[in-house]
């Protein structure tokens, strides 16, 4: 990737970015209570007395959330700490009923790991993961429903979050975006977080600083809190990096602070300075014993991990002969990777042009082209989702088979595909209904070819004189005469033979 350089008046600057992602754990109940976690429920309907911080209530760890955190850690190739400690992070706010958040501080469940960025040119870059820990979410304050009052919804209070902290390894807004995309992809593969930034189930804080190109120092960073889309994260970083450069070039100093991103004005604003920063008074939560998990527990989760995007991408490249870009796009979502594989691995194809093809499968490159091309275009055009695709993988596979066995020409196949999207019918049914079957009857094609040759003696002469590119024109005429149903290979072969002799 082209390096991201901010050109200042005094020289070139590079940006140093670390991301903290809060990913809501997929679980039926909260981290320390039995209350439900479903999104979008009526306010304050999914709140236990524990979540509301009532007197005498005590937290009890939800083992499913621990399992999900371990699964995520393993997915990020992180060290899993068999002993971790829950600590209280103390601060007062109206949507924090206990007056503290139960989090993990100096002993998180996940240690150092890594995440591989898939760069647009097909190359990769490894970004370090600093840590992963479990913590409770706070409730939600709603300030715009009453002129002088705030409303509090505690449905989210106590929901399990994983905080995943990267090392300051990212060097551009684009890389930050790729990091989030990849992390979301891994979380979705693992089934540990749905990655939905709009619903707030994945939120991002960006730590940003700049330094002169060539320098290795880490300058004072600012933390931009709670940005809720990948695009906003990138915009916030861009703005913040430029702001730092301007401050430094005007001989100013950057002070460590927390900032908010205004997506309307595309700028960051100071939220609180270091002086106003909370002193969270972390200490181990005396209501909870240290979290001790067995190596067996970790091994069991490891054994059940699905194939993750990096491994799948490598396999798609090796097994199907896809290029890095195509493989990267297909594996980004597990459902699209599965879709592709279903298309590629259907019934046996009838021709083999030498490209890699798994036993009993279809031509993988053709399958890839159809999925990446017409299918994704139809997905966009219809506004449908992979969960409910405009054309099923089975039908798309069947369509490819019809091309393979010569029933359809490439051109006819595109027409059939459009009809499949429109009607939802299987390709064989459409071919039958519309009489779109490719003509492979030698006599019929020959008659059409002969008719075109007979009607255009001057052009035949030109071809014979060496203007062979005119053969294409003849093909077009024959196809026109047969309403596109003639087998193009046969037309080509016959024309060459008859015109050139």
């Amino acid at each position, binding site marked *: 990737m082209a390096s991201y350089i901010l050109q200042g008046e005094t020289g070139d600057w590079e940006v140093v970015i670390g991301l903290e992602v809060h990913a809501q754990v997929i679980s039926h109940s909260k981290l320390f209570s039995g209350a439900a976690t479903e999104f979008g429920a009526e306010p304050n309907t999914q709140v236990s*007395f524990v979540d*509301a*911080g*009532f*007197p*005498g*209530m*005590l*937290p*009890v*760890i939800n083992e499913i959330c621990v399992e999900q955190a371990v699964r995520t850690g393993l997915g990020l190739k992180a060290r899993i700490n068999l002993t971790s400690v829950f600590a*209280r992070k*103390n601060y*007062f*706010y*109206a949507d924090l*009923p*206990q*007056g*503290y958040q139960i989090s993990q501080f100096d002993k998180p469940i996940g240690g150092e790991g890594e995440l591989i960025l898939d760069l647009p040119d097909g190359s990769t870059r490894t970004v370090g993961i600093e840590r992963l820990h479990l913590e409770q979410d706070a409730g939600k304050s709603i300030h715009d429903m009453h002129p002088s009052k*705030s409303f*509090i919804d505690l449905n989210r209070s106590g929901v399990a979050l994983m905080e995943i902290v990267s090392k300051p390894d990212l060097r551009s807004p684009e890389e930050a975006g790729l990091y989030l995309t990849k992390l979301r992809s891994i979380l979705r593969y693992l089934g540990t977080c749905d990655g939905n930034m709009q619903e707030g189930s994945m939120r991002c804080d960006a730590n940003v600083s700049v330094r002169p190109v060539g320098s290795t120092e880490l300058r004072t960073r600012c933390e931009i809190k709670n940005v809720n889309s990948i695009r906003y994260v990138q915009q916030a970083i861009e703005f913040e990096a430029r702001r730092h450069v301007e401050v430094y070039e005007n001989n100013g100093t950057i002070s460590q602070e927390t900032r908010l991103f205004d997506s309307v004005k595309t700028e960051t604003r100071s939220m609180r300075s270091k002086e106003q920063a909370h*002193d969270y*008074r*972390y*200490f181990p939560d*005396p*209501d*909870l*014993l240290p979290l001790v998990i067995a190596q067996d527990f970790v091994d069991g989760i490891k054994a059940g991990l699905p194939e993750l995007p990096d491994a799948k991408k490598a396999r798609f490249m090796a097994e199907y002969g896809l290029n890095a870009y195509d493989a990267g796009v297909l594996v980004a979502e597990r459902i699209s990777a599965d879709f592709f594989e279903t298309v590629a691995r259907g019934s046996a194809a009838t021709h083999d042009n030498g490209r890699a093809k798994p036993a009993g499968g279809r031509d993988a490159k053709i399958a890839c082209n159809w999925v990446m091309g017409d299918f994704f275009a139809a997905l966009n055009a219809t506004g449908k989702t992979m969960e409910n695709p405009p054309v099923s993988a089975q039908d798309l596979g069947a369509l490819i088979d019809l091309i393979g066995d010569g029933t359809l020409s490439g051109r006819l196949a595109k027409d059939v595909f459009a009809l499949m999207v429109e009607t939802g019918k299987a390709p064989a049914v459409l071919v039958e209904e519309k009489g779109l079957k490719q003509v492979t009857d030698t006599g019929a094609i020959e008659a059409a070819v002969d008719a075109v040759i007979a009607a255009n003696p001057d052009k035949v002469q030109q071809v014979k004189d060496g203007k062979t590119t005119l053969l294409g024109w003849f093909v077009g005429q024959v196809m026109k005469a047969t309403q596109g149903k003639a087998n193009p290979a046969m037309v080509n072969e016959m024309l060459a033979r008859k015109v050139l002799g």
Partner: protein
Amino acid sequence: MSNLTDLTLAEGRDHLAKGEFTAVELTAAHLKAVEARRAINAFIVETPQQALEEAKASDLRRRAGTAGAMDGLPIGIKDLFCTKGVQTTAASHILEGFIPPYESTVSGKLKAAGAISLGKLNLDEFAMGSSNQTSAFGAVENPWKRRSDPTAKLVPGGSSGGSAAAVAARMVMAATGTDTGGSIRQPAAFCGITGIKPTYGRCSRWGIVAFASSLDQAGPMARTVRDCAIMLGVMAGFDPKDSTSVNMAVPDFETALTGDIRGLKIGIPKEYRPAGLSDEVAKVWDQGIQWLRAAGATPVEISLPHTKYALATYYIIAPAECSSNLARYDGLRFGRRVPGKTLDEMYALTRAAGFGAEVRRRILIGTYVLSAGYYDAYYAKAQKVRRLIADDFAKAFETVDVILTPTAPSAAFGQGEGTDDPVTMWLNDVFTIPTSMAGLPGLSLPAGLSADGLPLGLQLIGRPFDEETVFKVAGVMETAANFTAKPEGL
């Protein structure tokens, strides 16, 4: 039948079983005592109607043959236990009017065993105090009087002062207490009754208003060792809702009272005889050693060298935890709220109005010791010392079976005495705090009277989850002490 209110739990249980009187009669007698001795201010809330209804139900259960272990026995519940439908205040204005929609595990177990609650007992605010003078609902008066000055009002100790006073004054047969640094044992000693803080983890903390989570433990307060054994058997047990409760079978504590302590080794810590120890307390302690020797046990001098740091350590750890535990009292969801122009102002006004001076002091100390830059110097260090204190005990228990110490450095003092200097007040728990820090079971029983006619208690400390040995030795000591004195007028 003598006076119904003089019966022990064990006697009451046996007489009820024989049908000599009904639960309604027993309850009514105690309700009468509650009314008659209201001046000592032991109760924050009385629930006589509910008690009589429960007593009727108890009599029906007995007739049906389904009576529980404590069926029909009138008790009091320290107002730190959340009780469903009955106001629970922790003796603080900040919780005034709070009616929990749930029942604490321990009070629920007592209810399930048929015990009849006569109401909620007074305590130091949020269990922070050793004299029951910090209650927002007024001080509790000790039913005992000095011979030299029978008009002076004495403190019952604290924080379970209402519990101790109510049991001593025969208003209830027994009561629940909680102990964080001595809050069961010291008031038991001051009021001439018996109380045990079991091993940390023995009783569930679920539904008990938290003071210092790593130290808080519920326990029974009654007039005999046997009664404590009976009641602890009902209160104890694993609770999946409390992650610090221990999954361990609850023994039949009553059967531990064999009266045979021959061959047991009794540790006598040399550090527990500080310069300022009252002669009377020292004397009763020596007497206790003699009783145990006479019963065939062997006193062994032991050393608990880190004891001298226990009080300082406690006053870092307990306030630290309390500063966090009490953050939830913010006026938003329950209890008292004082409106303010901003959220922060509402917090400040609510908490200033809701918390008393001692609670505010401890929140401030706790906030300080946890703050950035001080954590290592105070809290982290205190945790290390706490470990050393626990190691002292572990080492001692390699050679002895139980440890005998005084419960408190003096007999009950007068209301208003020693309140100028909080540190003097804190010294009351100097003998009980080390046990709490180590999470060990500690029992206090009355061993004699001071020259001025006030009860003096001795403390027995056991190995973790070895309440049985503590009860066994306490039973022998109780017999030897033959403590039959009662407060004036009873």
